[in-house]
């Protein structure tokens, strides 16, 4: 049973996955114009970070990394609630979620 699946997955694979997810989040945030999609990109970035936290926690048998993940998840939940509420009220007020049109702060 010396197969591929029996072996430990190396650390670098996790980190690579985390980096890819994070980059996807960043790119999605930059190129998408819909507010909700941008919001989802943020969630993606947060979870990429979570993944690397957990990875390091396992690697060094340290519990702090896992603790941090909990904090991040709690904050993300709160942020999602507030963010979605804002998005709804923006939509009600402006009837659009295209960020390029939401530029009233500009002089």
């Amino acid at each position: 049973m010396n197969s591929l699946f029996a072996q430990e997955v190396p650390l670098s694979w996790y980190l690579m996955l985390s980096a890819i997810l994070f980059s996807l989040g960043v790119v999605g945030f930059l190129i998408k114009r819909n507010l909700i999609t941008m919001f989802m990109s943020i969630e993606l970035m947060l979870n990429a970070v979570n993944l690397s936290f957990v990875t390091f926690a396992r690697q060094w048998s340290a519990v702090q990394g896992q603790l941090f993940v909990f904090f991040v998840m709690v904050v993300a939940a709160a942020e999602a609630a507030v963010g979605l509420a804002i998005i709804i009220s923006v939509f009600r007020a402006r009837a659009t979620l295209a960020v390029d049109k939401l530029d009233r702060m500009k002089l």
Partner: protein
Amino acid sequence: MNGILHLWLIPLLPFAGFLLNGILGRKLPKWLVTTVALAAPLAAFGVALGAAVSFSASNSLPWVETLPFAWINIAALHVNFSFVLDQLSLVMLLVVTGVGFLIHVYSVGYMDGDEGYARYFSYLNLFLFFMSVLVLAGNALMMFIGWEGVGLASYLLIGFYFQKKSAADAGKKAFIVNRIGDVGFLFAMFLLVANFGTLTFTEIAAKLGQCSGWTGGVVTVIALCLLLGAAGKSAQLPLYIWLPDAMEGPTPVSALIHAATMVTAGVYMIVRMHVLFNHSPFALGVVALVGAATALFAATIGLAQNDIKRVLAYSTISQLGYMFLACGVAAYSAAIFHLLTHAFFKALLFLAAGTVIHSLGGEQDLRRMGGLWKKLPVTFAVTTVGVLAIAGFPPFAGFFSKDAILYAAFLQQPHGRVLWAVGVVTALLTSFYMFRLWYMAFLGKPRSSDAPLHESPWSMRGPLVILAALSLGGGWIGIERTDGWLNMERFTSFLAPVVGAKSVAGGGARLELELSAIAVGAALLGWLVAYLFYRQSSTVPARLAAALPHGYKLLANKYYVDEIYGATVVKPLLGFSKYILGWVVEVGVLGGAAWLLAGSAKFVGAILQYWQSGNLRSYAAWLAVGAAAVLLFLLVPWATAWPATLDFVWKATGH
């Protein structure tokens, strides 16, 4: 020593009265306000009297009480809340609380029906609180608290009818003129701390006693600063101008604050600090000069005033001048003696004037009074006592104290006889204008309306009668029978432990009698002239005024001092405030600086605002670029090398 005495109760009781009436007075029933207002000074008087009795029995003065916590404790400066009871503060305390209580009682009748009844009594109690702090203070700073506090109470009470502009203005004038004097007091305290390191009276005296080298110089400057403070509070030249205007306040206030107690605080302060003055003959000379000049100056103004309260105000200034004169010839006990008797007869005269004004429905002009003796017999009788006392006829109180001052002045070397002569002339003038007031108000034909007048209630007449008795007999505490002859120095020997006994060289009973005879003769002359002028033929004053128009106008207009001060001090100051401070500093400098700051912020904002595109994705892009740059800086070795390279190039190019 029985430690049962609680000196701090004496100021605290009136303060409690002030708080109670000041906060709740409007809601409390009137009888309760009255009870509280009268109970506070009565209880304070009781404590003071108890102290007097127990101490005269046990002979253990001075008695010092220090509260168990320090007030100021910085480096070398230690100031405690300490109260001192010695012969000096005992006399003053009895005057303040005793006369104060009588005037409180009088006020119950006088202020009856006034809208601000409770407010009036709370201020009056506040005044008693600060005055007893001033009197009992064991160091200069405590005294200064009381000093400023009585100034505040005086301001509040002068401006009691604040709806009247003249009253509000008079209050402000009193307050501001007093501030000028207070600067002197403050500077004296600074100098005391700098040179003696203490503000406690006994320690200053001890330090001065240790080193006989303390003469002139710094001590003179301190004494002159103190004199400035005393001149402000006690309405001496050149700061007397606030006192005549202070008559805008209710008449009992004029009696209590502006005749009997507060204005004598300056005299009390000089006597309290007499050690300093004793070390500076020059300062003493200035005190005597100021006193004599003020006595004469104010008396001459008093000759031509027609407002009954103003006549009394100028006579107060003049009598305070006597007290300063006594201080100036180092006859401190005579000054305090005169302070005591003056408190009796001047409070009496003011309260009697208040009764007259009250009965006439607010009339204060002497020319519209007359013939009141039949309508107000009690007031007439007590005023007669007061006039005889202030004019200095034996055996009334004023005779003994004035005599003591003139005697001490006469013996002073080298210029004492000039001071004495000024004193005698002032006595003549005093007698004249007081009898003028007496004739114009009470005798002759009634010049007021024929409305039936009635005497005031007993709450007003009672204090008058008691004060009249004191004005009659108050001077006798200064004499006792020794060796078959009357010893006039009893009061002096009572105060001697505090102020020291003045050695009277070259005096003698015979000389003293002769001097008394001259003074009484002067007073009689003043009476005679007043009789001729205002009783015998009432046309004489008018003809005299017509014959000397300039002289009369000068007196009637009070030497134009208010006008002179207005032109030389007030107007330039107002102009300076309005043009220099108001326009140049306020509008130009401060306004300009504010405008410049706001303008530059606006300008920078106007430029920076173009960086804000308002586009969320561009912000995100900048954020990403920034994060990437930080990452690059942290992770890639050659990126970190950048600044080092730059630094190397910088240095290599010769910097």
